């Protein structure tokens, strides 16, 4: 089976490239004739041992090459730097979308408003999918700031725009599954986000000090939904704060202002910012850390690659009680209620100080969950099953497209077509199958 796979490639600084793709690539390439498509100038050349790598630009791509594969997969997530080109190709050549974030408002906001400076296009898309209400909210967001980006993300996630030309959808969370299924437009499959795990890994390579200060760790892209402010606030008002130190790894959008804030709160000796760190180094730190803080609010509808990395190191963690994180078993993570963030964080930290053992067990159970539920081979089998059905999805999409064109044409001459749409629908079924 020939598969086109559009995805950020290592060394792109996204877990879609370094955890997700690297995790499934051995199995995927073993069971298919795989071509990785990238708009990056550089990629890890070792990938070429497993798959053909082709570079493309969205406006200059070989359609025959894409057409000669059995199916094309597009990995789409919220970071426009990694996914904009992929989405642009997906709009023209139908394929199966692996949706890493089910709310992709941020992606389109960065793309239309940030990269393209196309406010008109941005508002047009909001109107297209959410009518005048969406247009009003978008206009308000642009002009007065009366509504913020979190509000826009929650109410106008623009998910259908990410999927507009797709054949079927793969999601990694139950919430995303329900969200896409409710649209009643695309076949959707949910598969647990995969992460490779050596067969005998037991997490015993950790070197965690038994005495304070205990190491807290946050890592990944520190966007506004990572709740840094709340974490700092919880620390500053925690009487036992000196028993902890917090290491933050990953890119921070406004690092200077964060440093100022840390200084202002008097947390300079307790909180260290390390910036982006290579995963080898990060893994070493995770081995010595005691507790990870992996909060998200609002969630973008993602399953967290970071969480799987945390479990890989048998590390206990605090997560927000929303979305996918909410679905995680309460004995594998500690849930923080968004409306009681600071109190909950403090309460967990105090409980940790009192008795770290239950937290250590939580980490071990997380590792077991990772092994049992996030197996890359099972995930790849789901992908291959979808690929095997690609033709059925393609024909189904043709029927929808045809129905849309017929509806548009009929709409131009009549507002009350009576039974005609049913007759046309029946004929489309005849052509494209049921």
């Amino acid at each position, binding site marked *: 089976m020939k598969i086109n796979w559009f995805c950020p490639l290592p060394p792109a600084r996204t877990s879609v490239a370094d955890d997700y793709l690297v995790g499934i690539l051995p199995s995927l390439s073993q069971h298919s004739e795989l071509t990785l498509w990238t708009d990056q100038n550089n990629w890890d050349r070792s990938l070429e041992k497993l798959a053909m790598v082709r570079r493309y630009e969205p406006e200059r791509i070989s359609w*025959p090459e*894409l057409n000669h594969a059995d199916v094309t997969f597009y990995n789409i997530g919220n970071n426009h730097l990694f996914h904009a080109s992929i989405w642009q190709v997906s709009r023209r*050549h139908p394929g199966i979308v692996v949706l890493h974030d089910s709310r992709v408002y941020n992606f389109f906001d960065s793309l239309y408003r940030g990269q393209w400076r196309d406010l008109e296009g941005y508002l047009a898309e909001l109107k297209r999918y959410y009518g005048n209400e969406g247009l009003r909210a978008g206009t308000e967001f642009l002009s007065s700031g009366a509504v913020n980006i979190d509000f826009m993300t929650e109410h106008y996630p623009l998910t259908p725009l990410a999927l507009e030309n797709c054949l079927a959808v793969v999601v990694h969370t139950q919430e995303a599954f329900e969200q896409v299924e409710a649209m009643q437009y695309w076949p959707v499959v949910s598969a647990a986000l995969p992460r490779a795990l050596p067969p005998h890994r037991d997490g015993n390579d950790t070197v965690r000090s038994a005495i304070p200060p205990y190491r807290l760790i946050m890592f990944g892209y520190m966007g506004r939904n990572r709740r840094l402010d709340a974490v700092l606030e919880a620390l500053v008002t925690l009487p036992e704060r000196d028993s902890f130190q917090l290491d933050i790894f990953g890119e921070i959008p406004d690092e200077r202002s964060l440093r100022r804030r840390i200084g202002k709160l008097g947390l300079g000796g307790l909180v260290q910012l390390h910036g982006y760190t290579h995963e080898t180094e990060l893994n070493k730190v995770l081995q010595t850390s005691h507790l990870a803080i992996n909060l998200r609010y609002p969630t973008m509808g993602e399953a967290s690659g970071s969480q799987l990395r945390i479990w890989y190191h048998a590390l206990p963690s605090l997560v927000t009680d929303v979305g996918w994180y909410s679905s995680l078993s309460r004995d594998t993570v500690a849930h923080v209620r968004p409306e009681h963030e600071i109190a909950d964080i403090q309460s967990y930290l105090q409980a940790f100080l009192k008795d770290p053992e239950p937290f250590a067990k939580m980490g071990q159970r997380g590792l077991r969950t990772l092994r049992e539920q996030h197996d890359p081979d099972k995930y790849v089998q789901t992908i291959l099953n979808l690929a095997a059905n690609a033709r059925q999805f*393609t024909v189904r999409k043709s029927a929808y497209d*045809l129905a849309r*064109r017929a509806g548009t044409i009929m709409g131009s001459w009549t507002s009350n077509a009576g039974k005609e749409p049913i*007759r046309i629908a029946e*004929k489309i079924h005849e*052509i*494209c199958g049921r």
Partner: protein
Amino acid sequence: MRILIATVQIPFIRGGAEIHAEGLRDALCRAGHEAEILAIPFKWYPPEKILDHILACRLLDVSEVAGTRVDRVIGLRFPAYLIPHPNKVLWILHQHRTAYELWDHALSDLVYYPNGSQVRDAIEEADRKLIPEARAVFTNSRNVAQRLRRFCDIESTPLYHPPPNAEKFYSASAEDYLFFPSRLCIPKRQELALEALAATRNPVRLSFAGTSDHPDYTAKLQSLARKLKLQKRVEWLGGISEEEKRSRYASALAVVYPPTDEDYGYVTLEAMLASKPVITCRDSGGPLEFVEDQATGLITDPTPDALAAAFDFVWENRDQAEGWGRAGRVRYENLNLSWDYVIKKLLA
């Protein structure tokens, strides 16, 4: 019977398919039936238009006209052969070729569109589901029947028919030219014939008859002939009358017909009727069902050098060429092609 012949018409383009439909209509009328051609205009780009045309055909109701029943529909070309009718018989000239045997071919356009594979799959799905609606499926050649089986798992029966005015073809003494009558278009490979002509050892002359689908294409071919310094050895007859065509066949040394995977091809049969050997290629499709290598013509690789060698051979071995031509005529007679037989099968 009241019979409709369902086909498509690409406006301003006329070729074998149009002649085929007219021949069938005339034969049906001669046999006492009331027959008309129902031609649907067809445009194949952008690719989604093809699906629109399928839908348009499926929405047609030709079961009766003004309260009078249409007894039979005979579907010839995609997508008109998908028009529904309770008493439909197909006599398929070809499917939408770029979705099938020409998908990977240099002539393909569909594969260059972003949604090419999507539309290809939908075409195949429609063919697979809807062709079997017909009470019988015939094809105009074995080649088309094989494609139908290979791509859609549909069995069909090849049904040959005589070219128009078959009885009027005759033979005369061979003169110093080879004859290539056909529409001027890429699939017929006039360019290949010109390149072959440039590679001959002898001053072989080649006479082209036919007009082009695209106005620029004639100029392109003529420019190639000039570039190859063939002006004095090439004749461009353009569109000629049927009488003149038969006369050109009659006096030709041999007939050149090297298309890409032709469905059927009247040229082969017309050459045989005129007792002329046919020079064709191994990948020419339909002609290979009739031409026997070194018995009624020559079959070569589709390369200028191989074709040039065939041109030289007939130029240098005229008696043998004449003998192959006569054998071709005998072979034609033995095929027993007749419209009566065709109609009997289509109306059974």
